[in-house]
């Protein structure tokens, strides 16, 4: 699958409280959550974000609470992929489970500016910066996780597992 979009760039330790503040967690519909995505860290995000756009950050993206509302809000806001130096553990598994693509690739983050246009080939793990012409390759997923991703998320994966167990 190829993804294409412009980059929103953030620093280290972007936590789930700024991705989607707790004051909005009295709902869980992704479209409702998306209305407040990133508003405490970047008041321009919602005005500028377009379908396909990409978030880039440095270390420990998604730290803090376990709220799955964070990747849900990001996904529903139109973001197609998050690329970071590293991700916080719970955010990482939540994103995999709900089908928000994540890539770990410090080099691409360090060589990309906010607003640059990227083209990502998820199957190959390649990140092409169209603005400056550079190409990077992200860490591949371990086989186990690829299984969940190719099934379409943890629910679909588990459904298959349950069906196999029955058969």
């Amino acid at each position, binding site marked *: 699958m190829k993804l294409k979009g412009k980059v929103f760039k953030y620093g280290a*330790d972007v*936590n789930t409280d700024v991705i989607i503040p707790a*004051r909005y967690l*009295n709902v869980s519909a992704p479209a409702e959550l998306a209305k407040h995505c990133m508003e405490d860290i970047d008041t321009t995000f919602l005005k500028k974000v377009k379908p396909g756009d990409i978030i880039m950050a440095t270390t420990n993206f998604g730290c803090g609470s*376990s709220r799955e509302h964070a990747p849900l809000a990001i996904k529903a806001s139109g973001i197609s992929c998050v690329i970071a130096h590293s991700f916080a553990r719970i955010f990482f598994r*939540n994103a995999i489970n709900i089908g928000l693509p994540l890539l770990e690739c410090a080099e691409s983050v360090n060589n990309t500016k906010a607003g640059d246009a990227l083209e990502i080939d998820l199957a190959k793990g390649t990140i092409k910066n169209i603005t400056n012409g550079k190409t990077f390759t992200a860490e591949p997923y*371990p086989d186990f996780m690829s299984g969940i991703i190719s099934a379409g998320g943890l629910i679909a994966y588990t459904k298959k597992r349950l069906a196999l167990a029955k058969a």
Partner: protein
Amino acid sequence: MNLAEKILAAHSGKKIVTPGEFINARVDMVLSNDITAPIAINEFRRLGVSKVFDKNKIVMVADHFVPNKDILSAEQAKQMREFCKEYGVKFYDVGEMGIEHVLLPEQGFVLPGDVVIGADSHTCTYGAVGAFATGMGSTDVAVAMATGDIWMKVPPTIKFVYRGELGKWVGGKDLILYTIGNIGVDGALYAAMEFTGEAIDQLSMDGRFTMANMAIEAGGKAGLFHVDNKTQLYIKSRAKKNYLVYETDSDAEYEKVIEYDVTTIEPQVSMPHSPANAKAVGKVGSVKIDQAVIGSCTNGRIEDLRLAAQIFRRHKVKPGIRCIIIPGTQQVYLDALAEGLIEIFVKAGAAVSTPTCGPCLGGHMGVLAEGERCISTTNRNFVGRMGSAKSEVYLANPAVAAASAVTGKITHPDEVMK
């Protein structure tokens, strides 16, 4: 193998597990709350199973926005109530509930050697009783409620050794803030933290819960303690089933061993907007506050309230400062009543609330306005965590929070208790 590896091996039917390995671990308890359960319930229904794997191994707690702060949160609690009724799952509702991570150990739901997962990042709190407990998302919880197991990557373990004797007013909160200040908010990313040493042996169960609670604030997957006499004493009267105590092997491997001499550690304060911005309270300088919050899954236990009461027995909250005190559970509330602590708090000018997460995540019961500052015994001081994105939260132990409520600025307890 170390403690975490031993527990995970036993729960995945393996003789040995090694860090980095993917396993399917059997779970002994699956938890969710009024924020995370609604998504978990929806995902559970999508799985199309007719029952939960074991209704005695699932608990739902309404604690974040209850007693409900608005119509939408009331709908969320209603959804949980209905699900629990339909599937025979234990639901802790208003009047019985407490903050999940204070409640579950208190009620004997989490025991040594257990694997516990919860759709709440502070599920790691139960490491204090020697369980492998870790926070996950709602979808993970949905799957575990259906199948009784969940995928995991075996984490490497970092061992922390705390040497020496703790100073006055220094407890679990100070040790963990100091540790996070030292290693950073991703210092234990993906790793299990094992807490050991003489200072840990001295620490009460309540102090250990406080430390395990904040393992996630260093990025940790779990924060574990070994079972000793204090743990056994705590568990004995509460356990509703058998449990197994695991010990670290003498040749266990660790990713790292970090040692601290605690004799020089002072009460700590984490400055905005990161738990890692920890410094000794004496080095904070003059910081005026508008509000003090004493409670949460970090410091809402009876020992925490006793500590605050030591100060409020002699001093009143400074006029113009709001002090909000929240017992973690109904039992903590009752104990505080029996010991006369609630009367001390009310007479000192503090507001005492029924158990709830409330202000900890900016839900209700003490949300901050723009430009306001709060000293809080909670675990996170991220931007906007307690209200306005232009407010500030300072993290500290209950004695520091109480002393600060008395003077109106961040204060060492010694200063008011001379």
